[in-house]
């Protein structure tokens, strides 16, 4: 995996900028820490970004915190509360959160020039900060958090040197510098690399999904914020007019115990409709997701809360129009009427699906515009460029124009 592999795909100016900045940062140590090695967008991104950073002459590594089932129940609660839809976090829960972070602090080597802590789960590791620049990278939507939970967390976040949010509306009133960086997809990963028609058909065949009619697809964790039940409702509204299939595909992440409960609700609602296919994908299903996205006619991401929703960029990259919820980072990817449609209800979702099903040329044009939009804005090279720029900005605090 090498930066040169992206020549001809990414913007050439991005590659030049990365090389120039990496030369300035050669030998610096960068540590990324998150809460899961597999499942979820963060792990996926780090698995690609860390080797690429090393290939640029940086000394990058990636560590994962260890947690108990109880810890991940707590952090899922925190995650939901920060996204404004949580239950009360009890004192016992806070104690679990602190003690697991404390044990990881004792266990982990957190020495680096730049320590980048991803999301709330390992956020308290900043308690071990002695030197280096510590950056909290928040991937979730905290634009309207539970105020008590945010009050508690804010005290810890302000110990960092900077915070990064995916969308400007997620910014908070905190005393540390805040930056905006969109997350990204890797066009050369198994999830996004080109596949042949045979490879696509093989995956559909393996899942027993006939490709005999248009396929609507939503790929997401089984999470209430992704509204899989609303997707089924929208599909049923469409089904009155158009013969199509619905595929709901999601994985289970080790830090997401709520998933099983939502999956049960989805299976109940799907009932015995032979045209609804609910797939629980194991980790390392990247090629399968790639094929499902490529085989779909329309991709949905009907979230009611969303961090960034990178699955949208993945689908646009494959030339598919996307119908997405008007939340989080989705409007940055779905340009209304250009790369897809933004929707606010089950009825709106159904309407846009019907519109695209009867206008395949419109769907094709939107898909093509979507791929170009992603190429220009959401590829991994943009993300690496932003991280390197942030590292340099941390070394030149207060400067707003930096000559390399």
């Amino acid at each position, binding site marked *: 995996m090498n930066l040169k592999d992206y020549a001809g795909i990414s913007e050439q100016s991005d590659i030049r900028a990365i090389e120039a900045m990496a030369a300035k940062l050669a030998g610096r140590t960068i540590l990324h820490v998150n809460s899961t090695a597999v499942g979820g967008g963060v792990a996926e991104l780090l698995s690609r970004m860390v080797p690429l950073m090393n290939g640029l002459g940086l000394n990058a590594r990636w560590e994962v915190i260890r947690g108990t089932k109880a810890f991940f129940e707590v952090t899922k609660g925190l995650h939901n509360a920060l996204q404004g839809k949580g239950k009360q976090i009890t004192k016992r829960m806070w104690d679990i959160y602190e003690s697991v972070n404390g044990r990881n602090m004792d266990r982990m080597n957190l020495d680096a020039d730049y320590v980048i802590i991803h999301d709330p789960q390992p956020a308290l590791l900043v308690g071990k900060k002695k030197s280096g620049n510590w950056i909290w990278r928040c991937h979730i939507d905290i634009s309207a958090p539970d105020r008590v939970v945010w009050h508690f967390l804010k005290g810890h976040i302000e110990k960092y040197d900077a915070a990064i949010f995916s969308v400007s509306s997620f910014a908070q009133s905190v005393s540390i510098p805040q930056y905006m960086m969109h997350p990204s997809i890797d066009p050369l990963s198994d999830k996004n690399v080109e596949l042949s028609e045979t490879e696509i058909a093989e995956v559909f065949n393996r899942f027993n999904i006939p490709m005999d009619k248009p396929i609507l697809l939503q790929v997401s964790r089984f999470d209430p914020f992704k509204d899989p039940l609303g997707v089924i409702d929208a599909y049923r509204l469409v089904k009155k007019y158009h013969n199509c299939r619905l595929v709901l595909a999601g994985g289970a992440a080790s830090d997401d115990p709520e998933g099983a409960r939502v999956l049960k609700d989805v299976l109940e609602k799907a009932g015995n409709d032979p045209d609804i296919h609910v797939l629980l994908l194991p980790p390392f299903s990247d090629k399968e997701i790639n094929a499902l996205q490529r085989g779909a006619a329309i991709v949905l991401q009907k979230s009611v809360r969303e961090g960034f929703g990178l699955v949208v960029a993945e689908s646009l990259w494959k030339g598919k129009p996307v119908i997405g919820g008007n939340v989080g980072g989705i409007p940055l990817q779905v340009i209304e009427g250009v790369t897809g449609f933004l929707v606010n209800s089950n009825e709106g979702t159904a309407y846009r699906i019907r519109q695209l099903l009867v206008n395949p040329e419109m769907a094709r044009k939107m898909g093509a515009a979507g791929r170009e939009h992603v190429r220009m804005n959401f590829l991994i090279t943009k993300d690496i460029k*932003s991280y390197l720029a942030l590292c340099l900005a941390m070394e030149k605090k207060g400067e707003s124009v930096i000559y390399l």
Partner: protein
Amino acid sequence: MAEPFKFYECLALTRLMGRKASDIIEFLEIIGQISPESIFHHMHQYFLRRHVIAPEFSNDFAVWIADSLGERSLAEGVANLNPYEFTNIEDARKELIRIISEHLKIYPPPRPAAPGKEFFFTEGVSFLIPTGLEAKDLDEFARRIKEVDGTSIYFHFYEARLRLGKKEDDFSRFFEGLGRTDLADKIKAMDPYMYSTEVLRNKISGLVEGLA
């Protein structure tokens, strides 16, 4: 002999200010207080980005007033503010405040933005990357300007002039150094905020080739 022209490419890291405006009054108050970098950023980031489809207006303020407040006539007034008429950001800020204040004397304030659609203030930290490309004369300049990225056009034209407080853009200054004030005058007479960087590149390139 004039210094050779050194082409830089540019990237911006977006810094979030943690301030947002829900309605036009709040917006006006923050505009009066926010950093000049933020005013500059919202009037220029359009030119630094590439678009599959260009937004209706090139300045973020006008887009927000039109899309989130639904106040089309004010959006048009703000969009028509031409930063090229100013040599420093404070003057552009004053004009922006004047346009909005005058509007509010005549019309009632528009409805507030829906939650999540407030105006979020940001500013840019710019990184300038030497391309190694230089031009000593017009012939060389005409070749090199076709080789650099659009961000280079952005930096030398918009950012060098208004953000770095120079009286003119880098291209005009270089042409004047070569004694070609005719060319500099033609560049200065353009209406640059109506062009994308690609169109601006073609315009400048065409002028240089026509007059070289």
